[in-house]
């Protein structure tokens, strides 16, 4: 099977979905109105509310939602063969993620650009907000733990990426200082910064960083995880302009470079997909759980992800120029992420020399180290297609993934800290109000999770990946619920949002129960507790959905709106 065929079919699928389904949803369900005065005009302030060209806004939305997750999930899920992952990514992007992202954008722009958290309170009720807070806290906890493990794994499998991955910090800080404090324009610092970054990648090949097997009794992976959390704690306290913003700028560029390089290499080199289309039987021998329902929670970002709703409602909706741009920005934003997931599938199935090599990698256990499969497979494809040295290609892709994951950790810890500080305010616990203590609590809980889940942060650490995907989809479920209620209030069809909602909740519950049994059998009690917590949250979301939809159907309006300020945690910006 030619990888070109896979890429072309996938991209054609996305295109058709955009042309047909998104047009239908936009015109018949959301009924987007070009005359509607969007919040960016209503509250224009030049800071948050800024009417923005739809191409530019799409770029920002896409780079904010794209992260390491749409790479890791699909690269793990190909263990069941490429076909199930491929179908879920393509169909999920069109029928789930597209509707969800665009819907969140629409819902928010119709409600003064409020965030999903604020909408949860306004539209579902105070309990809706509590559920939202629980889900988002679980999600942040897991995203930070999981990404620390992903980065640690990449550092171990691709030591040449370590140098550039850390070198980007001084580069970004210098750019930030020059641009923001010295008032030097963006041009020269950016060019010099990018050149330095690529030099660092090139140089990294000659100075791979390999940690000793064991440092004070901790494995190399554990040491990396700890170092990463020290970094995340420091980075999350700094003002955004010091590190986060200039690094986001580099990430955005890297994203487009990597996507272009991988797709160009596929088109030129036409690698063959060595993995089987269907591998269900072998997968279960290799220890993978049943494809249904686990596939649907293993690939969250890339098929449907609640994080997108946070970006859509907190940030993007404030910059929407016209309501009709919802279609372009929302649907195509989701499609961009689908494209990234598709690239990950191709890299993890066509980047291996033979079926035997592929089987050897994936038979090592579930979940496989997906990012490493992506980096090594992708590098192979880039080498064949474009002739770039394998090692350099590996470094390039690994650095991209690391930068994404690290930015997410930085943002994740920051948001967690806001939530903890908010709890400190609500429950009047003075200690938690402080920035430092709150950060330490956030980082401490993430480290506990990373170690508790991975048995010392080793390669087994990705075992919580499906739980992470589940939580992410729970958040998407809440967003879909909000969209459905808004549609119901306007007497519009709700099946296009309620069916995905029901699907997500059933898949989540089912997957959680299956995993609960697995954790029990293998004696992983820590993960059992986590699983039960998420199961509880799932049931709360489901009950909330049923009661809120029924209430709305009976004509009961939303509970009296309160004028509560949205918490800073709801202005999330990355996944």
């Amino acid at each position, binding site marked *: 099977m030619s990888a070109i065929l896979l890429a072309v079919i996938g991209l054609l699928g996305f295109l058709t979905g955009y042309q047909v389904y998104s047009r239908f949803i936009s015109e018949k369900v959301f009924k987007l109105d070009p005359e509607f005065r969007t919040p960016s005009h209503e509250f224009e302030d030049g*800071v948050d509310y800024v009417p923005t060209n739809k191409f530019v806004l799409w*770029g920002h939305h896409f780079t904010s939602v794209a992260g390491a997750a749409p790479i890791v999930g699909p690269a793990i899920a190909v263990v069941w063969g490429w076909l199930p992952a491929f179908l879920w990514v393509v169909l999920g992007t069109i029928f789930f993620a597209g509707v969800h992202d665009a819907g969140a954008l629409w819902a928010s722009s119709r409600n003064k650009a409020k965030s999903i958290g604020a909408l949860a309170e306004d539209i579902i009720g105070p309990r809706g907000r509590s559920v939202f807070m629980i889900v988002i806290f679980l999600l942040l906890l897991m995203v930070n733990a999981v990404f620390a493990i992903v980065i640690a794994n990449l550092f171990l499998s691709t030591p040449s990426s370590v140098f550039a991955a850390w070198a980007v910090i001084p580069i970004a800080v210098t750019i930030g200082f020059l641009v*923001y404090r010295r008032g030097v324009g*963006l041009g020269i610092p950016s060019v010099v910064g990018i050149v330095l970054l690529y030099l660092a990648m090139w140089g990294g090949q000659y100075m791979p960083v390999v940690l000793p097997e064991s440092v004070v009794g901790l494995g190399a992976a554990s040491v990396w995880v700890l170092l990463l959390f020290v970094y995340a704690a420091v980075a999350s306290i700094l*003002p955004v302009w010091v590190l986060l*913003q200039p690094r986001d*700028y580099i990430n*955005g560029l890297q994203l487009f470079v990597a996507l272009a390089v991988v797709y160009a290499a596929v088109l030129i080199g036409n690698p063959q997909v060595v993995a089987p289309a269907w591998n269900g039987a072998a997968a279960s021998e290799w220890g993978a759980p049943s494809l249904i329902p686990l596939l649907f929670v293993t690939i969250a970002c890339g098929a449907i992800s609640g994080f997108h709703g946070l970006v859509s409602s907190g940030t993007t909706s404030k910059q929407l120029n016209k309501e009709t741009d919802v279609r372009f920005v929302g649907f195509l934003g989701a499609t961009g992420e689908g494209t990234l997931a598709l690239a990950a599938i191709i890299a993890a199935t066509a980047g291996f020399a033979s079926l035997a090599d592929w089987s050897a990698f994936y038979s090592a256990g579930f979940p496989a180290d997906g990012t490493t499969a992506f980096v090594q497979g992708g590098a192979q494809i880039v080498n064949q297609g474009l002739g770039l040295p394998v090692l350099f290609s590996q470094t390039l892709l690994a650095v991209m993934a690391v930068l994404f994951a690290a930015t997410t950790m930085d943002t994740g810890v920051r948001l967690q800290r806001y939530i903890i500080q908010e709890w400190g305010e609500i429950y009047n616990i003075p200690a938690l109000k402080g920035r430092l203590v709150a950060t330490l609590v956030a980082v401490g809980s993430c480290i506990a999770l990373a170690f508790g889940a991975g048995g010392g942060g080793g390669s087994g650490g990705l075992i919580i990946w499906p739980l992470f995907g589940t939580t992410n989809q729970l958040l998407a479920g809440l967003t879909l619920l909000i969209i459905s209620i808004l549609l119901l209030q306007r007497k519009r069809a709700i099946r296009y949002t309620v069916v995905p909602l029901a699907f997500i909740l059933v898949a989540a519950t089912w997957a959680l129960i299956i995993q609960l049994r697995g954790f029990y059998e293998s004696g992983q009690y820590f993960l059992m507790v986590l699983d039960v917590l998420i199961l509880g949250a799932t049931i709360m979301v489901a009950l909330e959905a049923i009661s809120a939809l029924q209430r709305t159907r009976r004509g009961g309006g939303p509970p009296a709106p309160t004028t509560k300020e949205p918490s800073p945690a709801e202005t999330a910006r990355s996944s």
Partner: protein
Amino acid sequence: MLQVVLEKLRALGSLVREFYIAPHRGVVAREKRDEDDLFMLLVFSEMMGIPNPASYYTLEMQPILYERFHDWHTRMGMEKSPLEGFRCC
């Protein structure tokens, strides 16, 4: 023909430029706004019950800041002016 292509390229160039610059503009504008908000708080602090050693002197800055005042308190989530004697809406 060439004219049209050049025109398109120029438009594309300015879009790409805007794509990169806009977030930075947002960050800077936010920092400036936060700084100005803090200043606002210092100047109006006496009225919010925070003792100010220099209310007599901050008074002379209030007229200058008056234009920003409404903007500020609405952004702080207070729909009406929070100050007893300083209603602007």
